[in-house]
C-alpha cells in the first residue's frame, strides 16, 4: 500500500513539475528553455547510467557498447513515430491530443526497447562467454557495427541524419522513465536473481561452482540493460527531434562509463550522482569546451589511482545517512570490483 502511495506521489510530483516548468501552471513562471533542456538531457543520462550500471556495476561485466543499443532504440522508435504515428493517431481519434501523443510515444518506446533488447540478446550470447577486457572490446565492436549499419540504412536518413521526428518526449516522460529504470534496477538487484549477479561479479568461478548458470544470468542482465538503453535512445530522439549516428559513437559509451565510474560502480545513487555531475560539469564548462574532456579524463585517471571504487563505492547514498546497512555492496573486507 505504501509503495502505491509513493508511486502516486512521484507521478503527481513529476506532472506538477512538468506543468510548472512548461509555464502552463502558473502564469509567468517557467523554466528557461536552456535549463529545461539540460535537465531533460540529465534525465536521459540517468536512465543510461543506471541501466549500464546493472551490467557493469552489479554483474561486473565490462560493456562499452551501450551507445549502440541507445542508437537502436532511438532510430527504431523514431522510425515508428514518423511512419506509423499518424495512423495510430487516427485510430484513437476519441482521445485528447495529450493522450494520443503519449500513446504514440509509449508504443514507439516499447518498439525501441524490444528491438534494443533483441540486439542485446544477440550481442550478449556470444560475447558474455568472454571475460573482462575481451568483452569490453567485443561490445565496443558491436556498438560500432550497429552504428555503421544504421549509417547505411537510407530509410532513416543514412549519413544525413534522421530529422522530422515530432517532439513527444518532455520532462515528465523523461523523468518517469528515469524513475522506472531506477526502480527496476533496484528491484532486480535486491531480488534473489540480483544476488546471483553480485555473486558473478565477486567471483565468477565460485558462483558457477555454486550452481549459478552464469551465462544465462549475464545475458538476462545484459538484455534488460539494453532494453532500458533503447528507451533512453527513444526519449533522446523524441526530445531533440533529430538524431545522427555520430551521437551514438563509442565516445558516447565512454561518457556513460565515466558517469558510472565516477559515481561508483555498483551503486544506483552513485550512477545518478555521476550522471548529474557529468552533465552539470559539461554544461557549466561550456565556455571552456575544449578543456572539459581533458579535465574529465584526468579526473578518471586520478580517481582510479586514489579511489578506484568511485565516489560512493558500492554503497548507496541512503546508507551514508542512516545506520542501516542494507546495501548490496561488497562483502566486508573486499575492495574494488572483480
Amino acid at each position, binding site marked *: 500500500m505504501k509503495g502505491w502511495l509513493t508511486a502516486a506521489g512521484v507521478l503527481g510530483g513529476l506532472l506538477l513539475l512538468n506543468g510548472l516548468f512548461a509555464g502552463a501552471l502558473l502564469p509567468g513562471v517557467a523554466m528557461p528553455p536552456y535549463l529545461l533542456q539540460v535537465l531533460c538531457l540529465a534525465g536521459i543520462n540517468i536512465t543510461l547510467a543506471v541501466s549500464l550500471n546493472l551490467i557493469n556495476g552489479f554483474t561486473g561485466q565490462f560493456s562499452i557498447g551501450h551507445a549502440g543499443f541507445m542508437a537502436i532504440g532511438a532510430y527504431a522508435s523514431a522510425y515508428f513515430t514518423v511512419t506509423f504515428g499518424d495512423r495510430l493517431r487516427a485510430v484513437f481519434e476519441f482521445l485528447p491530443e495529450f493522450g494520443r501523443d503519449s500513446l504514440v510515444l509509449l508504443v514507439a518506446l516499447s518498439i525501441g526497447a524490444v528491438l534494443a533488447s533483441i540486439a542485446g540478446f544477440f550481442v550478449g550470447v556470444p560475447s558474455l562467454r568472454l571475460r573482462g577486457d575481451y568483452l569490453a572490446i567485443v561490445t565496443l565492436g558491436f556498438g560500432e557495427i550497429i552504428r555503421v549499419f544504421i549509417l547505411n540504412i537510407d530509410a532513416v536518413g543514412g549519413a544525413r541524419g534522421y530529422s522530422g521526428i515530432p517532439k513527444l518526449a518532455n520532462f515528465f516522460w523523461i523523468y518517469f522513465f528515469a524513475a522506472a529504470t531506477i526502480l527496476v534496477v533496484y528491484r532486480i538487484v535486491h531480488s534473489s536473481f540480483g544476488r546471483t549477479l553480485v555473486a558473478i561479479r565477486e567471483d565468477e568461478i565460485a558462483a558457477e561452482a555454486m550452481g549459478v548458470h552464469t551465462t544465462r544470468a549475464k545475458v538476462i542482465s545484459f538484455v534488460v540493460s539494453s532494453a532500458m538503453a533503447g528507451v533512453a535512445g527513444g526519449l533522446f530522439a523524441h526530445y531533440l527531434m533529430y538524431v545522427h549516428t555520430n551521437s551514438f559513437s563509442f565516445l558516447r559509451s565512454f561518457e556513460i562509463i565515466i558517469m558510472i565510474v565516477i559515481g561508483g560502480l555498483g551503486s544506483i545513487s552513485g550512477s545518478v550522482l555521476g550522471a548529474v555531475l557529468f552533465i552539470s560539469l559539461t554544461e557549466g564548462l561550456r565556455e571552456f569546451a575544449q578543456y572539459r574532456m581533458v579535465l574529465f579524463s584526468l579526473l578518471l585517471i586520478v580517481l*582510479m589511482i586514489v579511489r578506484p571504487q568511485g565516489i560512493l563505492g558500492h554503497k548507496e547514498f541512503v546508507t551514508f545517512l542512516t545506520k542501516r546497512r542494507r546495501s548490496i555492496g561488497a562483502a566486508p573486507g573486499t575492495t574494488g570490483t572483480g
Partner: protein
Amino acid sequence: MTTFLQQLVNGLSLGSIYALIALGYTMVYGVLRLINFAHGDVYMVGAYVGYFLSRRLQGSEPSFVSALLVMLGSMIACGLLGILIERLAYRPVRREARLTLLITAIGVSLFIENAAQLVFGPDPKFFPSLAPSADFIVAGVRLTSEQITVIVVSFLLMLLLRFFILKTRTGKAMRAVSFSLDAARLMGISTDWIISVTFALGSALAAAAGVLIGMQIPKIDPLMGIMYGLKAFVAAVLGGIGSIPGAVLGGLLIGTSEVMVVGYLSSTYREAIAFGILILVLILRPQGLLGRVHKEKV
C-alpha cells in the same frame, strides 16, 4: 588478376602499419595483461612528432637521411612517452583489479586525444613529403616508393624486434615476465624496468608506424589513433594476443581484408569489417591463430 594483385599490395602496406601497432598491444598485454587503450594515441603522437620534425628539416631536400632522422626522433620521443604513461598512470594501479587498470587505460586514451586537440589543434595537418618519391610498374601493378618503404621498414623493424626478444638478455627477461610476472621477480628480474622497456619498445614501433602512415596518407589529425588503434588491437587478437608473430600475421590479414572489402564491396563497411573479424575469431578460436590456450585456474 591485376586488380587483385594491386589490392593485395595496397593491403599489405596498410597491414604492415597495423602489424607495427599491433606489436605494441601484444607486448604490453604479454607482460601486464592490459589492453593499452592509449596505444593508438601514442601512434597519433608519433605521426605529429614526425610532422613537426620534418617541418624543422624542411630546408633540406627530401632525402632518405632526413626521413631516417625524423623516424628515429619520433621513435625516441614516443618511447619516452610510453615510459611516462606507464610510470604515471598504470604503475599506481597495477596491483588493483584488472577493471581498474582498464578504466585507467580508457582515461589515458581520452586524455591524450583531447590534450592533442588542444596542443596540435583539432583540424588535420598535411605531412610534408620526406623521401624522394617514385612509382614503379611491376607486372601491371603500380608500386609507389612510399608503399615499398612502408613494407621494407616495418619488416626490418619486426626482424630487429625478434632479434631483441630472442637473443638479448633484456629480451629473455621480457619473455620471462610475460610468462609469469611474480616468478620473474623471484628470479631477480627487475620487473619494473622490464615493463618500462616493453612500453618504450611498443611505443617506438607505434611512432614508426605513425611516421610511415604520414608518408603514405599525408593527412594526420588528433583522433586518427582511435580507429587504427582498435583495428591493430583486433589484429593482435586475431593473431593470438601475446604472440609476436601472431601480431604481424594478424596485422597483414586485417589490412588486406579491409582493402579487399573496400575494393570489392563498399567503402562504407570499412570500419565494420575489423570488428566483424574480431567477433568471429572470439567465437570460433578465442586464443587467436597462433596463440596458446590459457587454462583457467582458481
